[in-house]
């Protein structure tokens, strides 16, 4: 019986440590917290916008592309994902 409070305290501490370990606690100046590394990276990704110049360059590049022959349009290419 005497061990009960100690055990409970130990369990509580273990839980706290686990929680702390699971959390990527990044307190920024505004006190933002992230629950995991992935969440932190997702937030970072959400703040990054591809420069509009890429879409413009891409549009120009696509306009310069020669029109493909019908058989390539129908059957595509053999190798695509390298």
């Amino acid at each position: 019986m005497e061990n009960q409070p100690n055990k409970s305290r130990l369990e509580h501490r273990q839980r706290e440590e686990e929680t702390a370990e699971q959390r990527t606690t990044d307190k920024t100046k505004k006190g933002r917290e992230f629950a995991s590394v992935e969440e932190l990276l997702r937030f970072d990704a959400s703040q990054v916008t591809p420069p509009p110049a890429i879409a413009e360059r891409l549009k120009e590049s696509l306009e310069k592309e020669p029109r493909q022959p019908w058989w390539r349009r129908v059957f595509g290419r053999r190798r695509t994902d390298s």
Partner: protein
Amino acid sequence: MEMNSFISCMDSEPAIPKAGAPPADLGGGTWLDLYEQHSRYVYYLALRTVRDPMLAEDITHDVFLKAFRNLGGFRRQSSLRTWLYRVTINRCRTVQSTWHQRNVISTDSPDVLDGPSTNTEDPLHVLEVKELGQRIQTALNALPSEYSLLLLLVADEQLSYQEVATLTEQSADAVRGKLYRARRAFLEEFRKTE
């Protein structure tokens, strides 16, 4: 693990373009839709991998150009996102293996870590986000490239562990094991940046 993702609210799986559709047929909307749905992820992966906004811009352009050229050959054996990631990873590897990248780009330069424009106009928020981005980049730079790639891929909730495993050419179990170590290593490095 709790995932309060911004991703789920901003995109759904895109319609795969009709097989064989040439780039010209994608003009006037469709190619732009595809680009808008996926470019953020392609660009972010490239940016955090090659650590240079200009190179990331070139890679994103090349990846989508290649994608539009080859959409006819897309067999739907994987999701389009996975397919784009595969091309991005290969392109990043090519860029990283060039002499120029290895010798001229200095990732220690604050200019390189400045990164691209962010989503907001609030100067304080911009500063905060920029600083956080720099810390993340610094932490990722300190990791083995395999770990940083795993973390960046797993952060995209559209990818399953199996897809990440396929992209990184290993089993899903290996991904889980390495991911555990990658998270710990990242946290350690990230805390050093405080």
